[in-house]
């Protein structure tokens, strides 16, 4: 069986200018540099990494909102048509996006019910009377009451707004939902409500999620598989329990040990020196080597391939088998 979403060798470069116009030199920014993964129906891939690592660009590439420089995206075995074309618009019905900030994803001057119905009109689904019915039913499915239909976005709480965004995405019966930091703007007690809702919807509708977040705890909660990105590449990918309990790649180790926990006990923290470099100045060899406490000469020269390890997960590190087992080194 082929996976619902197949992404292979996906890359996107941007031409940027370094320094002030008109004197700056033109340079190439590799936002995403050869990313491959698959998501099956009803399953979730969690994508984690720090700002600027290319997670959001990956999300946009998957939906065709940004044109890829290389590589391809297949949905249900079909190649994603060129952005903006009629077949692409039709295919967009099968894949929807949920953004971080629901208030800016909604039109403040339009009643939320109309916004939930709008995708039906865009894709020409149903007659206008049915559309309203369908929208009310979808709003109920995400835990909103019919009286919310006539409200404006500012009259709803953050959690309710995110439910509206979800209802609007789900009303066209998509197979894939790309969620870019869907709970980061919400308060802790509301995050749990939205995460539970996402899990319930997945169980009921068999949705596949590409779940992007910097919150590793939440990613573990929702994901069947996790991929860690650093400067446009996947550096580790595997089962969430395994990946968070015994991270293999030094960057994953640092990310996991950076999560604050109430009882740290004997586990030491691996605090990285420095900051992620500017993606325009991607270091040669392994992009992580300037911050890596284990780096050797080979890391500075040779880009490590993402390869399958003995325990089934995949990591892109020359030294991964030789590193100390204890996860914070």
């Amino acid at each position: 069986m082929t996976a619902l979403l197949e992404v292979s060798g996906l890359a996107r470069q941007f031409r940027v200018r370094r320094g002030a116009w008109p004197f700056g030199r033109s340079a190439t920014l590799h936002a995403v540099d050869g990313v491959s993964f698959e998501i099956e129906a009803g399953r979730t891939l969690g994508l984690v990494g720090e700002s600027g690592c290319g997670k959001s660009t990956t999300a946009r590439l998957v939906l065709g909102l940004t044109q890829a420089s290389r590589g391809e995206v297949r949905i249900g075995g079909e190649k994603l048509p060129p952005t903006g074309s009629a077949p692409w618009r039709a295919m967009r019905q099968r894949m929807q996006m949920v953004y971080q900030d629901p208030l800016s994803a909604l039109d403040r001057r339009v009643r939320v019910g109309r916004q939930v119905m709008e995708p039906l009109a865009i894709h020409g689904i149903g007659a206008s009377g049915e559309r309203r019915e369908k929208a009310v039913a979808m709003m109920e499915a995400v835990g909103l009451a019919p009286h919310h239909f006539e409200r404006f976005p500012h009259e709803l709480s953050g959690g309710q707004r995110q439910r509206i965004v979800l209802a609007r995405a789900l009303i066209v019966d998509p197979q894939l939902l790309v969620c870019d930091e869907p709970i980061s703007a919400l308060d802790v007690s509301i995050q749990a409500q939205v995460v539970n809702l996402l899990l319930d919807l997945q169980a009921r509708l068999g949705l596949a999620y590409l779940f992007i977040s910097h919150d590793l705890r939440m990613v573990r909660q929702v994901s069947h598989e996790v991929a860690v990105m650093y400067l446009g590449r996947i550096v580790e990918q595997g089962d969430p329990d395994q990946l968070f309990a015994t991270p293999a790649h030094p960057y994953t180790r640092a990310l996991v040990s950076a999560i604050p926990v109430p009882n740290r006990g004997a586990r030491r923290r691996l605090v990285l020196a420095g900051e992620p470099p500017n993606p325009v100045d991607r270091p040669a060899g392994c992009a992580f080597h300037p911050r890596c406490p284990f780096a050797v000469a080979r890391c500075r020269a040779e880009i490590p391939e993402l390869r399958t390890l003995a325990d089934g997960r995949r990591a892109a590190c020359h030294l991964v088998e030789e590193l100390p087992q204890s996860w914070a080194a």
Partner: protein
Amino acid sequence: MAEPLVALRGLTVDFDTGKRVIRALHGIDLDVAKGEAVGLVGESGCGKSVTWLAALGLLGKQAHVGGEVRIEGDNLVGAPVATLERVRGRRIAMIFQDPSSSLNPVHRIGRQLGEALTLHRGLTGASAAAEAQRLLDRVGIADAARRLGDYPHELSGGMNQRVMIAIALSGQPDLLVADEPTTALDATIQAQILELLGEIRRETGMALVLISHDLGVVAENTDRVCVMYAGRIVEDAPIATIFGGASHPYTRGLLAALPELEGPRRRLVPIAGVVPEPWNLPSGCSFAPRCERVIADCERAPPASEFLTPDHRVACIRAGA
């Protein structure tokens, strides 16, 4: 018990919007001892930032502050500007969430640090420059001498937060109030900044109030945590007590809503409903409408804060039950 460094007593804040007066803080009692690290946790709008902005007289004219903020005999509420300026920066310094908006974008880092040094310690010229360089070095900025000539936009978010910490340290304060100091930063940079704050505290014996929405961050970096809800402290206890035996249903709810990093995945238990609007608070306990353990008495009056043990205080009539 020793005299606390700072004592808040019945601190209230009312915002006058012109049309109505909205109470944002309903009487905060909080002591911070010398060298102690206290966490202040709560969701947006619970008043955790307003508490310290009010204490330092930083709220502006629409805010009416009541109660007392005592630091070594002085009461800061309603105090003349001269008294406040003796305290701000020198006794109590504050850093904020977004470092780049706290720094002036059109002045070099060195000038901004120098200004604080002149203001708080009377240093000028070469001695100020030398001290500025020492401070930048102290907060872990490499090549400090050259960085003094940089503008904030030339530094990353993490670096700017280090500069803010350096400016806060320039007055050698007894207490640093850090309001969500790492929320805008990436995970690995957050770890660096929190490590730095811990180091400075061990070195100088400075007290710390860490305001955060993240229980994990507070747990790792403070000795004691105050949980706030709708303008009140609902629970105040040592970290181990909060994580081992929290009493207030809201604290328990926050903990249950947090996913684990290890062990079996369990379904999260969200807190039902939403935080009430400050102008529309229930007459009794503010948490009652969302509380699982609510009884009729909860809706009668806001519960008083009671000590369960000498270091564990809870505002819930069902805490002992």
